[in-house]
């Protein structure tokens, strides 16, 4: 059983580095999976063959590996062993595509004996429609939340991100589009970010706080009322940022419903409003102060002819005292945290002199490379996935058990930290595990709508000007009840024609083979010999003697409910 789970020799960094510049097939959006998928695989495989050239000295991946290794030496720890193919394939699918691999995808990868197969898979997944879907979900949630803020079009926001990721638009362009967006909320989906931050009339305070936090990685919201207690940020800085957003106007349109004769909500839009001169704010002492539009030392003409958001957008990409712009550092930090569970700062969106990064050199170098690449998101991902650290196993050893950021320690990235699946990942993984994706999931928006509807049971909105919310999907009882008893899990364990269990059971094959398929579909790994015999013993126990299918159903249920399934490792 272990033959296909042998560790593949890591092929980084030699082949990775030179591939960064290569063109990857642009994913055209098509909800019908399968064919598209295979085409992408071919493209990237052939591209990969062209790229077998020697490693560049001093490459970014080598630099990261060397820096992290130094950290391990300095802290007298030893990294965990490299992840097995089985552990790695599950991880990369969840991180890039937001779901576990299908049985076929797992089998194909595990049987592949090419030493370059991990590299090939990353390219395949980056060209996969589920990559676009996954990052669209993540950034839509970041931008407007998971709930349903009033007068915001989730569809519009998703459409914007979907196009941005599918067309591989550079991150700086995406950010500038978002912060300067105007127009109808379905015609220009980018405006939904702004609309979501304007739930209450607050002179753009929430829009200022969220924009600096999400895109710049700066938490200046405390300086709205007072100078920052620990760093150089002063109260005026918040209001200087805020003054860029004072020309933003939210317009909610209504229309007559001919059936009821009543006025109902129509569309919303972001428009421009006249604003010039300074903004006024109050010091704690009660003294009124003024602030003009200014960003990192750059002053902007406060006159009526200036479109301040356009100017703000230009300033976002300026380097700061020779350092990469905030938007580059913030994205690098977030992206690192996406793959490792921890960024270089905690929290990931609170960067600055008061909160030093765990690995400042890595953050700097990655940010510089990100800027130099033209804010190429896929290239940043390739770099991170190519590091030694990302390929490590998730089990710690005697020599690195102290590397435990969950206990508050600074992360050293000497083993892969466990992450809990997000609700969307869980939903999509259950769909995949049960074959539902092959039996007509409907179009993209239908799927998205279904998932969003399901999602709402876990969202708690706080109804305040920060538009914040929380989810009860973090390893809580409601999550456990959903996994044990919901319609979704019933469907996943269905034995109806066309379901995964039905197909597996109807195929010829021995009992151990069927058990193996169930393990592969749920956990992307082969069961061990002792697991197989344990399971066989249970399946042949009294309770299942008369109905074997029930036994398999319960086995699949148990696999989907296991800690190994719900955790990303």
């Amino acid at each position, binding site marked *: 059983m272990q033959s296909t789970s042998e560790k593949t020799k890591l092929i980084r960094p030699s082949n990775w580095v030179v591939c960064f510049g290569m063109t990857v097939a642009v994913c055209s959006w098509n909800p019908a999976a399968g064919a598209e998928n295979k085409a992408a695989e071919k493209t990237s495989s052939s591209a990969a063959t062209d790229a077998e050239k020697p490693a560049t000295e001093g490459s970014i991946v080598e630099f990261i590996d060397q820096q992290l290794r130094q950290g391990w030496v300095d802290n007298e720890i030893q990294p965990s062993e490299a992840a097995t193919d089985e552990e790695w394939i599950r991880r990369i699918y969840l991180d890039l595509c937001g779901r576990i691999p299908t049985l076929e995808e797992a089998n194909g990868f595990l049987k592949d004996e090419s030493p370059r197969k991990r590299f090939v898979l990353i390219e395949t997944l980056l060209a996969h429609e589920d990559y676009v879907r996954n990052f669209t979900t993540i950034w839509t949630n970041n931008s407007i939340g998971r709930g349903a803020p009033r007068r915001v079009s989730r569809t519009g926001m998703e459409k914007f991100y979907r196009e941005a990721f599918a067309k591989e638009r550079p991150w700086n362009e995406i950010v500038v589009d978002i912060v300067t967006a105007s127009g109808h909320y379905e015609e220009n989906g980018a405006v939904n970010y702004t609309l979501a931050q304007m739930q209450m009339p607050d002179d753009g305070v929430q829009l200022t706080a969220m924009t600096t936090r999400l895109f710049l990685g700066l938490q200046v919201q405390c300086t709205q009322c007072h100078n920052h207690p620990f760093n150089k940020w002063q109260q005026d800085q918040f209001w200087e940022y805020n003054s860029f957003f004072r020309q933003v106007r939210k317009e909610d349109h209504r229309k007559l419903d001919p059936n009821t004769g009543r006025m109902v909500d129509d569309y919303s839009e972001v428009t421009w409003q006249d604003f010039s001169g300074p903004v006024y704010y109050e010091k704690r002492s009660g003294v009124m102060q003024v602030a003009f539009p200014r960003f990192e030392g750059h002053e902007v003409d406060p006159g009526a002819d200036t479109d301040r958001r356009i100017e703000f957008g230009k300033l976002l990409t300026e380097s700061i005292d020779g350092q990469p712009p905030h938007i580059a550092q913030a994205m690098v930090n977030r992206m690192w945290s996406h793959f490792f569970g921890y960024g270089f700062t905690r929290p990931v969106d609170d960067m600055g002199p008061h909160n030093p990064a765990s690995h400042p050199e890595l953050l700097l170098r990655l940010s510089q490379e990100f800027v130099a690449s033209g804010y190429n998101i896929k290239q940043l991902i390739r770099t991170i996935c190519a590091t030694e650290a990302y390929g490590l196993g998730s089990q710690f050893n005697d020599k690195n058990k102290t590397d435990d950021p*969950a206990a*508050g320690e600074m992360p050293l990235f000497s083993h892969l930290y466990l992450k809990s699946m997000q609700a969307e990942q869980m939903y999509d993984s259950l769909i995949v595990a049960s074959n539902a994706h092959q039996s007509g999931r409907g179009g993209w928006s239908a799927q998205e709508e279904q998932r969003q509807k399901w999602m709402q049971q876990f969202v*708690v909105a706080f109804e305040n000007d*920060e538009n914040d919310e929380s989810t009860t999907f973090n390893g809580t009882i409601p999550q456990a009840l959903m996994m044990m008893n919901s319609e979704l899990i019933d469907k996943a364990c269905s034995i109806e024609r066309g379901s995964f269990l039905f197909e597996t059971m109807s195929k010829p094959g021995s009992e151990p083979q069927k058990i193996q398929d169930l393990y592969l579909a749920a956990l992307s790994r082969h069961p061990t010999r002792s697991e197989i015999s344990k399971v066989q013993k249970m399946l042949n126990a009294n309770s299942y003697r008369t109905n074997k299918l029930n036994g398999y159903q319960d086995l699949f249920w148990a696999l989907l409910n*296991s800690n190994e399934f719900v955790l990303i490792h």
Partner: protein
Amino acid sequence: MSLWNNYGMNRRHFMQHMATAAATIPAMNFLSHVQANADVVKANQKSCILMWMGGGPPTIDIWDLKPESKNGGEFKPIDTAASGVQISEHMPETAKMFQDLSLVRSMSTREADHGRGRYYMQTAYVPNPTVVHPTFGSVVSYELGKNRTALEIPAFVSVDGGAGQAGFLGMTHAPFVVDNTGRIRNAPTEEGKIRLADRLTMLAEIESSFMASRRGELPGAHKDVYRNAVNLMTSKQMTAFDAAKAEASLGLEAESEATKEAYGKNGFGQGLLMARRLVQVGVPFVEVNMGGWDLHAGVFDTLKNQRLPQLDKGIAAITADLKQRGMLDNTVLVWMGEFGRTPRINQDVGRDHWAASWSVMMGGGGLKNGQAVGATDKDGLQIADGSKAYLPGDIWATVAMAMGIPVNTVHTSKRGRPMKLANGGTPIQELIG
């Protein structure tokens, strides 16, 4: 103690037994036998009901009016049952209950951002990136939950909430969040429970190897949460969530229409009614959320027409009901939000975030009630000269004392750092007498 409680202690053994048992004896009898074993809840158990006012309530318009000041706003103060204590004219029913309620009018808490303020008020600690502090409900669950052997449902229930985290105390002490209708989503059917026993047997076998692998605490925490979920859904204490159901062995009646009306037929009122039922079955900490307080605009109209009528009815009803049932002395009431609101009225006739000087309400719990502790100055802008300023830790230390949790308790963070209960706060002298 019901058989299901063994799930965590001797899981494999128990579950195997369970699977066999379920197959050999008639299913329904088996389960009803399990349920009949539940103990009757002991009297004199202490509880706390937190009324959480998400968004930050304008306490200057509710508990600490300034009719003489330009900041005073539109409302007038009225007398309460406690001599010398006046509150808003829009809280007339609550005013009648003030012999059993108290105010702390000199809160000064510095965090005026929703997320940070919520964290600070609920944990008594300011946010710190390297550690997640437990919200106080989790502390109570940790301290008192283990002694409530008859309790089969979570020791910390949050109605319409969801922000609180158990932090370093572990996921089993996280709030169990329900909505105010009391409907538990995805609860199994009766046949579902039998099937579940078989499935859990399978699960215990399957996940043992991953649990034994060296991957930290998450795999084990997952098992603990499953155990709690199983306990919950097989318990007749589930009845407490549903106001329409009765369970004689637990002393729970189906609530009459009159009772529902008295609490107010809105989320907050029905949440409080559920809180009382949960306290009856022994839950030591219930949080009931009422939102909609982030009143940056139109504060007076919203208060007068929407928030305060519901608030008034709810507080008056829970206080009277607990008292009439003889439960009030054992149940501490706490009413707070993440901060108060600016004394100055803004251009939109709203009030913004304000943490420097505001009020918290407390009651019941055997405290010395019927008084207002501390004071703000004439315009409500700061704590009055000679008045002591209080922090959230002082409120929670007072609650701890009322609940019999030693105030000098120290917990240990995952990193081994000592963490004082309520951040080392001191019980408020005037309230503990």
